[in-house]
């Protein structure tokens, strides 16, 4: 049996697309072969974990899926009869528990025992199940359909790193076959995405990563001479920023292309993020499925709760607090390290600061100029700030300062 990591090399695409041909033919003729779709999904998930070094992860994925299945099923069943906050928060906590333990092990706490729980994709699967629990709490998801739940949870194209879909949206697509004309459009988009993805991930990201490693080496030689800062950290930041975007956007294009072939319109993940005019717009364009998930399930719920109960009267205080909570939770989700948390903090502060600036600008409308030049300046400023936060995010500073 070969071992196939998702989208890792060109062969993967050949095998996967061949396996999807019957499904695509069915969709073209208006039929969705659900059993076949599930079998292909499971087969390609199996191929991720089928060698010795990955088999433990495969087992963890199975246990994890059963755990989430029971939680979501149990909660939706409960929610039909009753609706107390206690049960909701307890279920949500149990749903987050596995990734919480894995993150603890990543930070070196109970390392050996807890790392057994981790597997490729755990952080993305958590969004799927916790999202469903929240939707059930709000009454947006009313019934539990075991097969649809598993198709959603184990939807292979987006298993390892998103984009993050929502159950209600997914179920709508997955229940039927798309109209033929629409499906032809989707196939066209899939082809475009695949080729753009190849250019992004296998060419541009490849070279960006090489330069990133080169600049890291130069910076480390300064570190070995005992320097606390190095000019080389600047190109480290920018080359990492390029690598991260082209690698991740390329990967997302692949995931979307395969979704489209399967007749599922997973949400897009990137929309020219480095052209954003401010940090808020950046988050509407960067890793969009993640930031929208956080917007809907963390930021808006937090604000809603605080305003509804009038725990804090001043709306600006509430939104500032919500920005920090939102971005810090996102930081923690990435991992329990000082640089992920600092990264979240920086973005929380930037979002809050951006609001202060917008309020100030509104008050002094006539005195502050607004034209093509100031907009261009805003794009440049946002871009450089983001690169600075990526220097923190990439974790190289940890090596540079503490592991010389």
């Amino acid at each position, binding site marked *: 049996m070969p071992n196939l990591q998702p989208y890792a090399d060109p062969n993967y695409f050949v095998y996967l697309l061949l396996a999807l041909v019957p499904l695509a033919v069915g969709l073209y003729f208006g039929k969705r072969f659900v059993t076949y779709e599930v079998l292909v999904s499971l087969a390609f998930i199996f191929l991720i974990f089928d060698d010795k070094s990955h088999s433990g992860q495969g087992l963890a994925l199975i246990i994890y899926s059963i755990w989430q299945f029971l939680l979501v099923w149990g909660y939706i069943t409960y929610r039909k009869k009753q609706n107390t906050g206690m049960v909701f928060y307890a279920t949500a906590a149990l749903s987050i528990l596995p990734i919480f333990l894995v993150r603890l092990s990543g930070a070196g706490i109970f390392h050996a025992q807890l790392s057994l729980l981790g597997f490729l994709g755990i952080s993305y699967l958590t969004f799927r199940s916790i999202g469903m629990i*929240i*939707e059930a709490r*709000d*009454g*947006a998801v009313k019934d539990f359909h075991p097969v649809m739940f598993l198709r959603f949870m184990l939807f292979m194209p987006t298993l390892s790193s998103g984009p993050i879909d*929502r159950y*209600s949206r997914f179920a709508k697509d997955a229940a039927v076959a798309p109209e033929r004309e629409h499906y032809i459009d989707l196939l066209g988009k899939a082809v475009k995405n695949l080729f753009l993805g190849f250019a992004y991930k296998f060419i541009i990201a490849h070279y960006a990563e090489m330069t990133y490693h080169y600049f890291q080496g130069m910076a480390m030689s300064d570190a070995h001479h005992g320097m606390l800062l190095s000019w080389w950290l600047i190109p480290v930041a920018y080359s990492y920023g390029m690598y991260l975007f082209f690698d991740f956007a390329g990967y997302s294009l692949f995931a979307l292309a395969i979704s489209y072939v399967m007749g599922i319109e997973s949400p897009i993940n990137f929309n020219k993020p480095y052209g954003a005019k401010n940090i*808020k717009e950046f988050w509407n364009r960067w890793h969009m499925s993640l930031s929208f998930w956080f*917007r*809907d*399930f963390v*930021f*808006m*719920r937090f*604000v*809603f709760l605080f*305003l*509804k109960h009038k725990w804090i009267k001043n*709306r600006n205080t*509430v*939104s500032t607090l*919500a920005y920090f909570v939102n971005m810090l939770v996102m930081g923690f989700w990435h991992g329990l390290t000082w640089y992920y948390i600092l990264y979240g903090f920086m973005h929380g502060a930037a979002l809050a600061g951006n609001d202060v600036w917008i309020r100030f600008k509104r008050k002094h409308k006539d005195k502050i100029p607004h034209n093509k030049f100031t907009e261009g300046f805003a794009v440049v400023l946002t871009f450089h700030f983001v690169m600075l936060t990526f220097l923190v995010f990439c974790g190289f500073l940890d090596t540079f300062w503490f592991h010389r």
Partner: protein
Amino acid sequence: MDVKAGVLEIIKDVTGEDMSNQMDENLFDSGLLDSMATVEMLLALESRFNIQAPVSELAREDWDTTNKIVASVTALMG
């Protein structure tokens, strides 16, 4: 109670803009409604029209213009 007048008043309170002549203007794309303002609007709609507004899973495409908000609120009122 006139839903349209009430919605317009709430949008004016939240965004500072009178939308009565731009009922089909996209409130999210134009930046008038950000997440914060959306929540404030939903809370105001809840108490004014005695409805339960969906916070999570707010289908933005059903709430992105004044006309659509009026329609969504009317639908929620049953």
